[in-house]
């Protein structure tokens, strides 16, 4: 079955969203939707508002106007931890791992919402807390296997090379078993092999778990190959929205992003 046929109804609808910081307009009347199971790319030049868009989706920023509808529910001032509860996970452009903790602990933290025991049960340890901890560990090991980072599981994340840190961050997001995964430049600063690995992981996550993915990426080859549909932002405005081929052929996009022909 091809990816196109699995794609379902929109699960995230962004309507007319505007966001400004003082006099700077980061986003101006942006509307688009994300369908279930699809890989949706957001592209645009630096400062176009791509990361701001992700921050609006998972509640780090609150837009001044416009609405975000997730799974048919219109949201009002959602906090990031509530967004996480609704099944939205993300990675950051600048790696946001917990530096003092090991790879394993970082990924285990991604499962915090699956924990049912209270701190008192955890203090006593014997019984439910222990069983639950082992169950979480089993799930985390699945993610570790999936992303092929078994050899570093006990290493403090600060000691890992950049590419692996990015992968651990993806692992932490995946450990939450999200419905919607936001990836902010997952391949930035990687060499070609690391990029290929990361593409493989993004595609497998989408195919095996059916996770809907919104990703920001600068590597056009990657974007065109991976994504089902592409949103193009420029100076906070929506420039184009469509399939990779349609976007590639769009004259406004070519002018603004890929360069004006001389």
């Amino acid at each position: 079955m091809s990816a196109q046929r699995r794609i379902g109804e929109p699960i995230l609808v962004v309507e007319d969203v505007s966001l400004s910081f003082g006099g700077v307009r980061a986003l101006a009347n942006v509307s688009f939707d994300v369908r279930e199971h699809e890989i949706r790319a957001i592209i645009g030049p630096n400062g176009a508002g791509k990361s701001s868009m992700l921050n609006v989706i998972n509640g780090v920023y609150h837009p001044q106007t416009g609405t975000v509808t997730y799974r048919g529910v219109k949201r009002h001032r959602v906090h990031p931890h509530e967004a996480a509860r609704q099944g939205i996970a993300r990675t950051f452009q600048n790696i946001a791992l917990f530096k003092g903790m090991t790879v394993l602990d970082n990924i285990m933290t991604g499962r915090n919402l699956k924990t049912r025991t209270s701190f008192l049960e955890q203090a006593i340890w014997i019984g439910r807390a222990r069983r639950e901890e082992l169950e979480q560990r089993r799930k985390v090991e699945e993610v570790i296997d999936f992303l092929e980072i078994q050899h570093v599981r006990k290493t403090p994340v600060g000691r890992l090379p950049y590419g692996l840190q990015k992968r651990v961050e993806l692992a932490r997001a995946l450990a939450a078993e999200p419905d919607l995964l936001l990836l902010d430049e997952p391949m930035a600063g990687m060499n070609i092999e690391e990029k290929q690995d990361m593409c493989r992981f993004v595609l497998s996550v989408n195919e095996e778990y059916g996770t809907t993915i919104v990703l920001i990426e600068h590597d056009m080859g990657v974007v065109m190959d991976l994504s089902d549909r592409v949103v193009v932002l420029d100076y906070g405005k929506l420039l184009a929205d469509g399939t990779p081929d349609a976007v590639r052929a769009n004259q406004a996009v070519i002018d603004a992003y890929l360069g004006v022909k001389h």
Partner: protein
Amino acid sequence: MLYREAGQFKATYAEDQQIFPIRQDRIAITALLLVAFLVIPFVASDYWLKAILIPFLIFSLAALGLNILTGYAGQLSLGTAGFMAVGAFAAYNFELRVEWMPILVSWALGGLAAALVGIVFGLPSLRIKGFYLAVATLAAQFFIVWALTKFPWFSNYSSSGVITTGKTEIFGYVFDSPREKYLLVLAIVVLMALAAKNMVRSETGRAWMAVRDMDVAAEVVGIRMMHTKLLAFAVSSFYCGVAGALYAYAYIGTVEPEGFNLDLSFRILFMIIIGGVGSILGSFLGAGFIILFPIFLNSYADPIAHALGIDLPPGMTSNLELMIFGALIIFFLAVEPHGLARLWQIGKEKLRLWPFPH
């Protein structure tokens, strides 16, 4: 050679997640506990038990409490002694005013009272961080000591503001001698240290550390900031409160609010800086160091100075103590922020590989 884990394979996650995954460590900690429970009480003199070992255990517990808050959850606090005072005075009042209450329950309630006060003074942590939060907890320190002095009800209208604790009786058995008190304190401290270790190695501890390391990312993975920070304040203050109650009941016997002053808060902060921030073991190492070092200096500073041909002026040893502590704290902050516990860990890692360099 002895400290090798070759051949110790872990076949289950449970084996891999033990507190001491290496067999030699398990043997060492068992031996240490056996000595602490079965040998020391019969070997150590009353002076050692009363003046060194009991305060060592009590300060370890207080340092452990502060370490939960500062080392694991990353919230700097200068109110440790204040929370200890709440524990001591609350336990005293529970014992005094509710006659049937068993002593262990009144100590636990002392801890809970400290936890409540800790939550109140932890509220500013939701808005401010680091240095400014330290100033806010400083307010807790001064306010608590002031309130305990100002309202004589807390000290049962004693004219000097000093409280004298009653006897420690559990199920009709009176813990009177230093040996009995030592064993009681030891049991409580071991149990609470184990509980702390269990918390920091499970979800609670990971949430604390996530908030400490990067709060934005912590929120994005679903950790509730308010709940996590206030829980750290509550648990930390509970530990400090119980330490305060033990300080009053098992160590000093008569305490006044001024005994829990800012100096004491700083002493406990120094314990975790020297011992190791974010380490359970570090709390014990730091407390041991800060309690034993002055004693060592008192006994040996003069002979060492003589041997070197220097005459120390009288009173010099106590100044020496301050100077050496100051130098050590600067050293640890600059060179090894994770303290003695980290040095211990590095030593163990080296030992695993010895005699090979890699």
